[in-house]
């Protein structure tokens, strides 16, 4: 039984790291209806900047972190302004393809600026696990869970209570109506990319610390799809719940099913789960249902 809980807890921890990446994805989709295929690359870029600041320029963490967050927010603004805004109103799939192009640019730019060689992000987080009731809790994963949790709570509060957050929700609901009541929709778009940049920065630091920073870091973006679909593409709590479920299922499946089928179940089991869930709830657990009228 300890083995099961080990797997389960480990899965939840990893799931919270997926959720962090998923969050940026969901924010952009919710506010701007853009499916961002470059979210993984955004995370990678965040990791690269962090590694560059900490390792190449040898800044202390207390200085590096604000610089990192600031530059990723700026990057989010720039991307929205320079690349996505000209595409406003174009058909969705062309916009998706623009983000695929964007991903290539990020890949090239990161390697061009800081080199393709793998870098390490030194964080003052100990490696030795805490052992509680025979369950091993790794400090990096705990940190990730805490960061995701804080982030999530902050944004739920932000969307519910703050003026800007309400404006963002209004825009997500109906852009035209939002404009009509005087909401600055452009500002909302820019802000959602900036927040996505912020989430990517944190994701980049934590994932980069776990697996090292090079352009392959962008692959964590792939893991996001089942999580966000499960939770619903446009739901912030959905991103968290989806991430946690996917993480836990992967982990437990890898521990119990892998030995019998020759491995790799965690690669496709989340997707099977996702399809089944979609057959029952086509818009995910928390996604907004679109009622169609002709």
């Amino acid at each position, binding site marked *: 039984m300890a083995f099961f809980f080990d797997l389960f807890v480990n899965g939840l921890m990893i799931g919270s790291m997926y959720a962090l990446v998923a969050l940026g994805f969901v924010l952009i989709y919710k506010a701007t209806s853009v499916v961002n295929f470059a979210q993984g690359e955004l995370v990678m870029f965040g990791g690269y900047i962090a590694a560059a600041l900490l390792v190449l320029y040898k800044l202390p963490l207390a200085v590096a972190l604000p610089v990192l967050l600031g530059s990723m927010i700026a990057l989010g603004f720039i991307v929205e302004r320079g690349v996505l805004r000209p595409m406003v109103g174009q058909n969705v799939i*062309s916009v998706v393809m623009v983000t*695929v192009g964007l991903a290539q*640019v990020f890949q090239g730019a990161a390697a061009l600026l800081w080199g393709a060689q793998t870098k390490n992000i030194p964080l003052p987080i100990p490696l030795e696990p805490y052992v509680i009731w025979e369950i091993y809790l790794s400090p990096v994963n705990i940190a990730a869970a805490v960061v995701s949790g804080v982030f999530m709570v902050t944004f739920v509060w932000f969307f519910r209570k703050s003026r800007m957050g309400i404006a963002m929700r209004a825009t997500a609901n109906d852009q035209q109506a939002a404009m009509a009541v005087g909401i600055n929709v452009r500002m909302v778009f820019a802000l959602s990319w900036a927040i996505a940049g912020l989430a990517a920065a944190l994701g980049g630091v934590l994932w980069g610390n776990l697996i090292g920073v090079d352009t392959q870091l962008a692959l964590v973006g792939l893991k996001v799809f*089942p999580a966000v679909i499960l939770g619903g593409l446009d739901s912030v709590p959905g991103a968290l719940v989806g991430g946690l479920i996917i993480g836990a299922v992967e982990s437990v499946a890898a521990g119990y099913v892998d030995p019998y089928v020759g491995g*790799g179940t965690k690669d496709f089991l989340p997707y099977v789960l*996702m399809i089944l869930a979609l057959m029952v709830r086509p818009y995910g657990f928390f996604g907004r249902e679109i009622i169609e009228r002709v």
Partner: protein
Amino acid sequence: MINRECGVYQTTYEGDMALYPLPLARYSTLAVVVVLALLPLVLDSHMMSLANLMLLASIGAIGLNILVGYTGQVSLGHGAFMMVGSYTAALVTVRLGLPFWLGLPAGGAVAALVGAFFGIPSLRIKGLYLAIATLAGQFIIEWVINHSPWISGGVQSTIYVPTPTFLGWNINNEYRRYFMVLPVAIVAYVAAMNLVRSRVGRAFIAVRDRDVAAEIIGVDIFHYKLLAFAVSSFYAGMAGALWTYYLKIANYEHFTLATSVSYLAMIIIGGLGSVLGSVFGAVFITLLPIVLVYVVEGGAALFGFKYAAIADFLANLRLIIFGGLIILFLAIEPEGLFRMWGNVKRYFRLWPYSY
């Protein structure tokens, strides 16, 4: 193709609905085919390999466009359906000894079945949710092929096939491979052109434009969505099978998610809902990285840089330019290269008397 409509009047419905209603269009299409057939006389073997790769990509892209562009069902699993075709062709060739011209439809048929199966979720879910559901198809098919030694031929998941032959003619160099690929590509192109203007094609378009309305006017959505998946996967399977005979090997690593995404890129940049656009897109995405190699490295050499000294810089620069061009093309013309081609054609239609 370039043509002018001046002075052509149709007096029958058949004439009006013909694939190429204008005599000039017919001649220019014929001319293109003749040029394609004579291409090996002027190109060297390296250029022929480029031509082959573009034709192979075109077949797959046309198939995907039938599904995404005409029926409106976004798919991220195209690579996996190509994989199914590829392994089917390899297996029927190696185990049953079938020649390649039977292996091709076999690959297509099996892929069509698998494609229709993975199209079932499309009845319930739509749009981006469907795109991600087909992404699941990509991973599931990959996993199954990878973990079934009966299909994949052992831990390496690769199957070598013998040199394909046609009437005792060994297809073992780029010129001969061209004549294996070209007819298939032409048939695929013509078939798609005819499909999309037939009853079935119109049903596809109706489903894409407004599925509820289509259902009300009597289009069986269930039937046509699955049919679109099957047809598209048939094309993918053919392309995968042809790829197997072209390389003489089946290996699933040639058909990963990246392949699916790049096919999607082809049809979006080429133009959704256009058969010719798919070909444009296939040519663009296949050729652009290779042309960039010559342009960027040639350019650097022009300024006196040694390749070895700045190879990394150039490689990453190319990647940035590649991504940048995709963004730029879509920003200029979100409807793709086919639309650009249309603009050019429209300009020349009244030329030199345009006003």
